[in-house]
């Protein structure tokens, strides 16, 4: 029987990677991802996990090694954070363009300078357009579940795309949470063996990542874009089957108190738990406010978003990243452009907050909701506001 165990989330994630019978792990340790890599290295060294652990000299090498192992058809995992992701950057595009279903845990960390090891989503936003499927977890159980789902989605013959599972650095990686560990039999039922359709093999040579002159490149990119967009159907199917086997439900946007809401707060990651507390308190004060937790970041769930916001007057979007000199936080500006050409959509108000690990309290979110509602009524003063920076 599945048991509920107190466990650090990084350890739980590593156990999920083990239960997925991962063949190859290649990663370079970096705060706050270190516990994942250390624990996986231990599992391999102690023969508890039948995998190759490839120690490398940098993150660029880590992801490059993953390309090779995924290309031969090995189930492949890596993990990184912040600056480590930046060093992987060029290889990110290659993994998705070559359609290699690598799974990465990204322990979200603010980017230097100034040097910070603490959480925000600046790193995740820097890889927004690299063509990976990208999901955000809110708590430890979701991190565990979404790691298993990630392999299932990535390796589906109709997807074949790498997946990033985002988990907030420290706020998730280093906290001990109750985790329901499934039976191995359940994981095996959910996750079939990996069969890459065109593996590198001397008996049947293939060339990957070949040269494409101008008369071929755009066709290949269009095919890649279609593949990422179409992956949503497989993601929904994979989540549905997950619910059937494990009993927990996953949706592109999770709803809280949305039935009669005319204001909603949208956020990604672990701050959603604090947002929920703010919603509860605001409800007690009589405000009809709800919450939208954006789980699926790529492919962006446009239709689901329009459906859930159409009865709202105001939508407040919280970003944990800045687009310097741009139209607002990345999530807010995408939400706005997704709704812009459609009738009857709410006002969209953007707040950027929680940068570099700054704590955002329930009372802060309550202030943002009140301010957002006011701004929606009066009209926008500015495209976005950075909340929490002292004058």
């Amino acid at each position: 029987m599945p048991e509920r165990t107190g466990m650090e989330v990084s350890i739980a994630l590593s156990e999920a990677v083990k239960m997925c019978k991962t063949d190859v792990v290649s990663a370079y340790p970096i705060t706050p991802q270190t516990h994942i890599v250390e624990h996986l290295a231990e599992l391999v060294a102690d023969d508890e996990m039948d995998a190759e652990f490839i120690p490398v000299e940098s993150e660029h090498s880590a992801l490059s090694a993953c390309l090779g192992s995924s290309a031969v058809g090995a189930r492949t995992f890596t993990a990184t954070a912040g600056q480590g992701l930046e060093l992987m950057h060029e290889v990110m595009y290659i993994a998705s363009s070559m359609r290699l279903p690598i799974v990465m845990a990204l322990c979200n960390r603010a980017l230097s300078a100034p040097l910070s090891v603490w959480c925000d989503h600046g790193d995740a936003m820097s890889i927004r357009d690299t063509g990976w499927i990208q999901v955000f977890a809110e708590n430890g159980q979701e991190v565990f579940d979404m790691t298993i789902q990630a392999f299932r989605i990535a390796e589906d013959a109709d997807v074949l795309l790498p997946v990033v599972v985002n988990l907030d650095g420290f706020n998730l990686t280093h906290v001990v949470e109750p985790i329901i560990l499934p039976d191995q039999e359940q994981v095996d039922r959910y996750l079939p063996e990996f069969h890459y359709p065109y593996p590198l093999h001397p008996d049947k040579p293939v060339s990957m990542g070949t040269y494409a002159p101008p008369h071929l490149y755009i066709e290949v990119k269009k095919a890649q874009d279609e593949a990422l967009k179409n992956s949503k159907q497989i993601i929904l199917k994979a989540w549905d089957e997950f619910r059937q086997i494990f009993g927990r439900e996953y949706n592109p946007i999770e709803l809280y108190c949305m039935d009669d809401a005319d204001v909603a707060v949208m956020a990604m990651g672990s701050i959603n738990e604090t947002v929920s507390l703010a919603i509860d308190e605001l409800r007690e004060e009589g405000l009809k406010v709800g919450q939208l937790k954006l789980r699926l970041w790529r492919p962006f769930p446009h239709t689901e978003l329009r459906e859930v916001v159409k009865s709202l007057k105001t939508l407040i979007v919280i970003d944990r990243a800045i687009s310097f000199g741009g139209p607002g936080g990345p999530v807010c500006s995408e939400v706005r452009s997704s709704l812009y050409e459609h009738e009857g959509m709410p006002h969209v108000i953007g707040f950027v907050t929680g940068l570099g690990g700054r704590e955002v309290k329930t009372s802060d979110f309550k202030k943002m909701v009140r301010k957002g509602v006011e701004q929606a009524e009066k009209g926008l003063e500015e495209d976005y506001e950075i909340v929490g920076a002292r004058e």
Partner: protein
Amino acid sequence: MQSSEELPGWKDFKPGAVVTDAGSARSYKTGDWRSQRPTYDFEKCIKCGFCYLFCPEGCIHVNDDGFMEADLYHCKGCGICAHECPMHVVTMVED
């Protein structure tokens, strides 16, 4: 370049544009990059093979008469063979 009717559409690619035919670079017509082509005065040729070794395209082969000559499907007209030939056998002309 091939006409657009012969070129693959976006649905024609395998995932990741993986190429499953070994040695398929052979079918890629680098010859259409060319603005000049090599011509030969084989009477002066000493069959030293410099042109063969230096050709970046690897497109020089031994013809029926035993002389080294470019395959124009792949020759991109760089003129390196003409530059390297010690006997001035090769002359580049407008294509």
